[in-house]
């Protein structure tokens, strides 16, 4: 366990360094993007004087380095500053959207786990037989469907043709928990399907590879039933790479699901980031990207810990 602890500490220090570097890169990248922040916020018909006034108000006339250190000092104190477009504390804005997205990702993950494990098990049990072929065809089909199209097909299938779910996933602070789950089911399902196909393919490969290995042959010679072999001996080992893939997928759900959010107009974290980028709202972009990076790193760390716990060599 000590080895694991050292590893975790190592990873933590390394992660903090990464975050600091990311913050500098983001700040510099936004600085060199073309476009003028005041005219973006006030619109194309705003008078020059008003734009200049806003520039001074937002401190945009100060050198970039100075602004970066101001921001970074605030961030270290836990104060991410004020959004320059909405003129509200960044923390409030990000938190509201992030909690929505986490709820969405959580539900998607719940659907994703059985959706990716069960088909892979079926495929491994019936390798190269009809069920395996059918599932393989389906996964390839979904893999080659663009996110936008899949979300749209689900939208028309389960909200318009069969009106089971609302087509617009508009949640707000006033939405009750039951309604909330109903409203976000469609986007969560889209996400789960999109990501499950990767998990299924990966898991099928590693299961089939493992079933060919010596220790499984040994178990077979001992006369253990095939099902028990797969569930007890092959699956836990095969889940290690699957867990890593799942972690990356989950992190991707936090920041990279803008397409799904747009189709269902779900007020999530991804859309907030896109809006912030369009408005060149530096404090908002910085906070959002840092949080996304932090989640990415944290989730990977958790996956590593999970892998350590699943690994029979490290189990004590």
């Amino acid at each position, binding site marked *: 366990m000590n080895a694991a602890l050292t590893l975790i500490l190592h990873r933590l220090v390394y992660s903090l360094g990464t975050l600091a570097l990311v913050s500098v890169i983001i700040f510099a990248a936004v600085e060199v993007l073309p476009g003028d922040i005041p005219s973006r916020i006030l619109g194309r*018909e705003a008078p020059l004087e008003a734009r200049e006034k806003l520039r001074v108000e937002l401190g945009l006339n100060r050198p970039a380095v100075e602004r970066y250190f101001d921001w970074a000092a605030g961030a270290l104190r836990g104060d991410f500053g004020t959004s320059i477009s909405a003129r509200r504390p960044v923390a409030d804005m990000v938190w509201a959207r992030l909690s929505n997205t986490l709820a969405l990702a959580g539900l998607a993950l719940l659907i994703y786990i059985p959706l990716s494990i069960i088909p892979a098990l079926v495929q491994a049990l019936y390798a190269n037989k009809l069920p395996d072929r059918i599932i393989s065809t389906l996964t390839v089909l979904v893999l080659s469907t663009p996110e936008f199209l899949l979300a749209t097909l689900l939208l028309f299938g389960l909200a318009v043709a069969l*009106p089971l779910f609302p087509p617009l996933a508009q949640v707000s602070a006033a939405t009750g928990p039951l309604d909330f789950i109903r409203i976000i089911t469609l986007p969560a399902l889209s996400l789960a399907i999109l990501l499950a196909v990767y998990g299924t393919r990966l898991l099928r490969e590693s299961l089939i590879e493992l079933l060919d290995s010596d220790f499984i042959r040994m178990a077979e010679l001992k006369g253990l039933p095939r099902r028990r072999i797969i569930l007890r001996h092959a699956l836990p080992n095969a889940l290690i790479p699957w867990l890593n893939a799942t972690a990356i997928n989950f992190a991707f759900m936090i920041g990279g699901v803008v397409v799904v959010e747009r*189709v269902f*107009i779900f*007020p999530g974290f991804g859309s*907030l980031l896109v809006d912030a980028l369009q408005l060149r709202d530096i404090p908002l972009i910085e906070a959002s990207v840092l949080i996304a990076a932090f989640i990415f790193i944290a989730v990977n760390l958790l996956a590593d810990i999970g892998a350590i716990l699943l690994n029979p060599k490290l189990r004590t």
Partner: protein
Amino acid sequence: MRNERKIRALLLGAVIFGLGPVAAGAQDCVKVIGTEPGVPNLTMDPAFVNLADDSYQQNAVYNRLVNLDSSFQPIPELAKSWNVSEDGLTWTFELEEGVTFHDGRPMTAKDVVYSFRRLLDPKVGSPAAAVLNFLDADGITAIDDHTVAFKTPTVVADLPTVLAIKYGLVVPEGSTSEELKLKAVGTGPFVQDVYSPTETRRVFQRNNNYWRKGLPKAQCLELSVVTEEVSRIAAIRSGAADLILSAGAAAAGVLANDPTLKLEKSAPGTYLTLSMWTDTPPFNDVRVRQALKKVVDRQLLVDTIILGNGVAGNDNPVPPTSPLAYTSEIKPQDIAGAKKLLAEAGHPNGLTIELNTGEGYPGMVALAQAFQQMAAQAGITVNVINNPADSYWDVIWMKKPFFTSNWSGRPPAEGLPYTFTSDAKYNEAKWNNPEFDRLLKEARSETDVEKRNALYKEAQKLLSDDGGVIIPYFVSDVAVMRADCEGYVPHPQVPILNYENFVCKGKEAAQ
């Protein structure tokens, strides 16, 4: 017994959860969806209306002093009547009585005076100041509680029309920009209920003390913006939305055949432009400008780019269908004429030009590409540069010698000086024509309507022949509503919306 009830409740819950409609809080609102998002910097302050999204919401909670009908003629709103003095310098507006703000304060002349003075105040910094630069803040005065006078330094013959601009909504005296940004206090048909500048879903409740008796017809109004066309179609088809304020041309085509829906078209308003700098070669030669205008097949653009939802244009901001247009004839495509003009201008072997565009407004890229094809027929090579949409308006627009743009429909009195006079702030073509300037100045101070319209027509013709802006077509807005709804008509001027009569079955006002 008690257990049975529990089981029944559970079963009922399961049914509602699985199949029932989503309960939208306590009551069912009319659900309206728009297309142009303003999140995360929406504002409820009329002085800073920026994107269409701001207008979607502000029209629910505020009133104008004067409004415009679909042919841009001024109609009464908070001002029930108006007249102008002999010398044309003083306009007097009689206000409706018994109008109250949402906080209970009575609306008086003082509030109207404050609202317009605030727009002109350089400390406030509203974009409206540039549009209303012919007004004198000190000349706006309250004669009594229900009479407002606008005394202008020079004659402004179309003053009531110009006061209907998107910023001209009446706010209570003393309200500041900081307050109004988050909390609208208006006299309008609906009262702000659920609102945040960073969230697209907004809820407005019926103003039960609305000064127009019996209106609004709906109990509450829920507004959101959906940027994806497929999501808008899904929403209206499934009944999650009752009204799409402005559906794209393609969506209108798809939804027109659906028996559960109704379409309402506006008069043509918004137009796209191809603007060239008239002080820069080769566009400084009027023959080149005219050649570029001659290559355009206007009707073909209407049929292909906007699928017939609009009318062809004549390179000036007044649609040929308007009674105020200088002609109802559409300029025909004339490739031979274009070639001849180019040869005369010293380009017998054709011409190569660069056209900058970007999807800063829907349809601009398609227009640029279509223009490229049409110009090729006359030996003109147009290199189309497609720029990123998100920075189009501050990086490309008015900064390149030949670019695409778009403008909301405006009455001639406002539209002609807004982007075409030599001192116009948005003189996209850098066009300097003293004759045109003189005609507009004369028209602005001409109090005889017939003579004034004649001057505007003359100015349009001059602009159409000599100007540096191609205006190939005007777009009609298409609103789509469910068949059991009624009472919404889209306006050709995007920032004007009226929800007063909009209602759907089962969502009527409780009273």
